[in-house]
């Protein structure tokens, strides 16, 4: 019997990831023959808006680029400005930045765990992990004044010092999360159902991974050990002990296991940061923001976000406003060209599952 080719539009109404995008699938039966991504539903023209704002005014905007994980954006923009300007950042600020980045990574992984299991019908996980993520958001609220959008990392340091007794609160949450990780293991990571569902699904070819522009956990899930925190240490990552886990296979399961290990590593990093937090200034003040000019120049900096390498390229022409700020998120490759490629041959039910495991984040693709 000859199977007829059908076209299915998946999305843009919530394809099961953080944001809206559409995948146009050509299928025969349940098997995807070809996939075509359509993005642009969340395009706000951030890069255009930044050109119309002063350097400091860009900060409330950049954190909106990646909704679930805003902090790498702030950190990146701060660092790219600092690099053009040659501004020093106090040691304490660097530690606080790492603390924020790692907390943000934990929060993102918790949300991802919920999404990953939700997309295979395991609805208990999101109830747990998203609920637990809220404790991290509470910490952010204590530290920065905002739950989701922090606007905390600024050029020259951070905006406010750690509040009284914050370290203990963080450690308490870390203990709690470590305890909960066992529950997550029972329910998801050691779950035979998950293993069977995820093994061999959405495979990235190890030989092609680098050429395809794969970064972050998907790259490490192919057994290639690369992490910006090690490759090009920023802030104080070169002073902290952590391992970069890798798994072979390049499939959803490998990526999940990489993230699970990194979750543990992040908890350890947060503890080290709290333990080694130096005293001193938290902020090397910028001049009056109404008259703050960044000298002409350009720079490219990158951060390892929970999704992978997050790069910022900024150009200053010496005026009050940036000439150009370009944000390159990992999902820009993962969610568009890579997704199209690895969806071929997968099942329809795998689409959302694979998208989740790649960390697809449309607001970051479109900006």
């Amino acid at each position: 019997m000859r199977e007829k080719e059908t076209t299915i539009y998946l999305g843009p109404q919530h394809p099961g990831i953080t944001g809206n995008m559409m995948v146009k699938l050509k299928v025969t039966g349940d098997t995807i023959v070809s996939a075509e991504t359509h993005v642009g539903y969340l395009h706000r023209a951030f890069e255009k808006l930044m050109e119309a704002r002063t350097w400091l005014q860009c900060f409330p905007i950049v954190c909106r680029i990646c909704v679930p994980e805003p902090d790498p954006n702030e950190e990146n923009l701060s660092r790219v400005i600092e690099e053009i300007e040659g501004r020093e950042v106090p040691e304490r600020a660097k530690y606080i930045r790492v603390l924020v980045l790692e907390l943000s990574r934990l929060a993102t992984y918790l949300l991802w765990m919920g999404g990953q299991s939700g997309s295979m019908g395991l609805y208990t996980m999101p109830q747990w992990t998203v609920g637990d993520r809220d404790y991290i958001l509470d910490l952010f609220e204590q530290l920065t004044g905002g739950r989701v959008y922090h606007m905390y990392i600024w050029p020259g340091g951070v905006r406010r010092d750690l509040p009284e007794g914050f370290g203990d609160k963080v450690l308490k949450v870390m203990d709690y999360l470590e305890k909960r990780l066992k529950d997550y293991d029972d329910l998801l990571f050691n779950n035979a159902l998950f293993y069977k569902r995820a093994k061999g699904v959405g495979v990235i070819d190890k030989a092609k991974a680098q050429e395809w522009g794969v970064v972050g956990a998907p790259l490490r899930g192919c057994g290639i050990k690369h992490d910006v925190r090690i490759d090009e240490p920023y802030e104080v990552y070169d002073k902290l002990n952590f391992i970069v886990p890798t798994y072979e296979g390049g499939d959803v399961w490998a990526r999940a296991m990489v993230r699970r290990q990194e979750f543990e590593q992040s908890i350890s990093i947060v503890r080290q940061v709290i333990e080694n937090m130096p005293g001193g200034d938290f902020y090397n003040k910028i001049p009056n923001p109404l008259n703050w000019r960044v000298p002409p120049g350009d720079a490219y900096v990158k951060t390892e976000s929970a999704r992978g390498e997050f790069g910022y390229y900024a150009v200053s022409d010496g005026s009050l406003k940036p000439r150009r700020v370009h944000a390159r998120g990992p999902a820009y490759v993962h969610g568009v060209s890579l997704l199209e490629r690895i969806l071929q041959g997968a099942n329809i039910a795998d689409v959302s599952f694979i998208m989740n495991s790649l960390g697809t984040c449309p607001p970051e693709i479109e900006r």
Partner: protein
Amino acid sequence: MEVSYDKESRKIVQAIERFARKHSLWVLAYGTGCGAIEVPPTMTSRYDAERFGIRGAATPRQADVLLITGYLSVKTLKRVIRTYEQMQDPKYVIGFGSCTINGGMYWDSYNTIKLLDMYIPVDVYINGCMPRPEAVISGFIELQKVIAEGKAEGARKYKENLDWYRANQQKIIHNWNMPDYNW
């Protein structure tokens, strides 16, 4: 089949209807902007919106509430209009976040709409950027109140002023290749 009531019993039936409606608000799972990030915490264990009969619905035809979580790009607006028109009565719209009210931080963006109520009728606004889960729940409680008072008339307004809404919509959606849902 149309059942005719006398004036008194219509009132009683309406009250019962409204009571039922307000305690079963199914929200279409269409996170349109960054506000969608505060919806999962609202819906899951920490804030547990299901206490109020609020839960997600996968398709427009089963949903009662269209939660516009933030800005709408022109491209999304087209899909949202289509979704809204597919929804069955009674239906309500909540404008979530500053950007639905007056453009918010995207006030000068070329790709996002600024005033949501120019394109689809809005019953309740929740201010904030972003609104916390508590504010979201407050918004729903307000919506329940509005429903109980019989003031949530957005859908009727849309029907009555369809031409006005269409004109606004078509001002920015250049290629209007959408089916007509027989208003």
